[in-house]
């Protein structure tokens, strides 16, 4: 008799819990402005100008043994490294980085720390507060070591000027010379 009573109590508890959960989820209104996809509104550097900056990420960060791997954060696609899945026969080392790959790299860079990027673009934090600069400058632990010189690296100038409004093309070109 005790066993039956216990089972009834347990079943009632599970039912009550399920009822509470379903009514809770029914009440939540995510207010999704784009019709179903939850999104964070952010401020971001210019996407068109990123075409000047992407080669710096590709050559200095995106080798196959570093950020050119599908399993790593800040995944970078490039002509010499990891290719975006495609039907055009673009394989590593065969063709130049495609516009789709540059767009995907832009999303990787922006999506790494969207809130912090917003604060930087708004002028509340300096560019060096972003991981995309802190890591290569070794201001924060970086498995790949120092990818940029501690000061005056054209790679940092390229990224910083892009964030601040317009990428310094000379710096961007200098940053990939020899790489």
């Amino acid at each position: 008799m005790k066993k039956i009573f216990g089972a009834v109590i347990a079943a009632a508890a599970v039912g009550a819990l399920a009822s509470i959960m379903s009514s809770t989820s029914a009440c939540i209104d995510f207010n999704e402005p784009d019709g179903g996809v939850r999104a964070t509104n952010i401020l971001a550097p210019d996407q068109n100008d990123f075409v000047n900056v992407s080669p710096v990420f590709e050559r200095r960060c995106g080798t196959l043994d570093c950020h050119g791997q599908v399993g790593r954060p800040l995944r970078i696609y490039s002509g010499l490294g990891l290719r975006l899945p495609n039907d055009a026969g673009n394989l590593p080392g065969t063709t130049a980085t495609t516009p789709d790959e540059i767009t995907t790299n832009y999303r990787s860079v922006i999506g790494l720390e969207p809130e912090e990027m917003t604060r930087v673009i708004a002028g509340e934090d300096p560019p060096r507060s972003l991981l995309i600069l802190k890591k290569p400058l070794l201001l924060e632990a970086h498995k790949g070591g120092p990818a940029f010189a501690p000061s005056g690296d054209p790679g940092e100038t390229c990224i910083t000027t892009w964030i601040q409004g317009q990428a310094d093309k000379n710096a961007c070109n200098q940053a990939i010379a020899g790489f």
Partner: protein
Amino acid sequence: MRRTLLVILALVACSDPVRDGQLSALPGENPNIPVGEYHRAGQPCVLCHSPGGPASGSSFAVAGTIFADPSDAVGVDQATVAFTDTTGSQFTVTTDCVGNFFVPRPGSSAPGPTWDPQFPIFVRIFKNGVSRTMQGQIGRERSCANCHNDPQSTSPEIFSSVGHVSLYTSNPPPASTNCPVPPQVQP
């Protein structure tokens, strides 16, 4: 019981699940090739030959295999592999008859001069006037075969493999005939 538990904890503490997974994925030793400079051509050498690895005593700074052409895994004998690291330090090493080469780390029991490169490093291979330069830099990987693995990307699912390192693009010269082991990787 307590001692057994301590032993188990010690074993667990020393284990690197990433390395263990990579090691278990490797093909086994070829029974016709003794463990030594000719073994495991085309495999990621530094996986074992590194601190913490099963061959940590003979640890390498960089190591790999140079094959003749992209389609066949036949090693190139006496090819020179020339490295330059980010500080400008340079180092060259020569392949053996199966195409294997290794750069011992300082303190390693492996024979030959040692080198402790600062990444990124750049690399060029050459022999008898034929030369190939790697287009990108090596960011931090010490085993060539971790990126230069077979098969080369040919399917829509794989877009990261560049195939094994090869010196010639076509018509390679004949393989070494003085090699104590077959210079071609056996499937």
